């Protein structure tokens, strides 16, 4: 099926961001594991996998619409050197993703492409859940302090 070029361009913009997020969350996970923060490492790893699944669905959509998925381009991968910095940088990625997905939904509706709209709306809710999680962690850090927070990030079964 031949898709609208503007839609395909937007899907590739989203794909670029997803590929970037995969790497950012992955390196954050491995850094946390290296620091002994096993629970945080697991969470970041799962977020990276979630972004891979998002990228998967976007790639399939682009191909279906007759476009070429851009697997080369990435935005800068912003790597935090502390846990709070990593959370700030991941939140930036997610907030940008929410804006981008909302813009995508608007464009898809305008173009009458409700298949794309459905996909983007579904991915959007996942990104919002991640925003929610990060904001909750930042709240926990602010009320209990970073040392107490990190002490609870060592045991993944905690």
């Amino acid at each position, binding site marked *: 099926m031949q898709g609208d070029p503007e839609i395909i361009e937007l899907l590739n913009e989203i794909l670029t961001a997803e590929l970037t997020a995969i790497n950012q969350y992955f390196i954050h996970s491995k850094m946390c594991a290296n620091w002994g923060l096993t629970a945080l490492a697991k969470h970041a790893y799962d977020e990276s996998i979630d972004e891979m699944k998002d990228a998967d669905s976007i790639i399939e959509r682009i191909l279906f619409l007759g476009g070429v998925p851009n697997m080369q381009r990435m*935005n*800068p*991968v*912003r*790597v*935090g*050197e502390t846990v709070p*910095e990593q959370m700030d*940088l991941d939140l930036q990625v997610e907030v940008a993703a929410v804006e981008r997905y909302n813009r995508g939904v608007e464009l898809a509706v305008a173009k009458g492409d409700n298949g794309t709209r459905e996909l983007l709306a579904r991915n959007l809710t996942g990104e919002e859940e991640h925003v929610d999680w990060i904001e909750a962690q930042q709240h926990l850090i602010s009320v209990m302090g970073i040392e107490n927070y990190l002490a609870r990030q060592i045991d993944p079964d905690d």
Partner: protein
Amino acid sequence: MVVCHCEAVNDERIRATVRSGAQTLADVAAGCRAGSRCGGCLPVVEELLDDESAQVVHLRTVDAA
């Protein structure tokens, strides 16, 4: 934040390089090697350059007051 992955340069080191006189991407690369290899970090180096020069403008405005 790690900015240049190729040369392991963080934002603090780049800001320090700008404060010591680096004004362009080439200056920054010469001063601390950030942006001298794959180029993936250049958008972020540019942000830092703009941010530092905006702060200089702000300080000058305060001085003039």
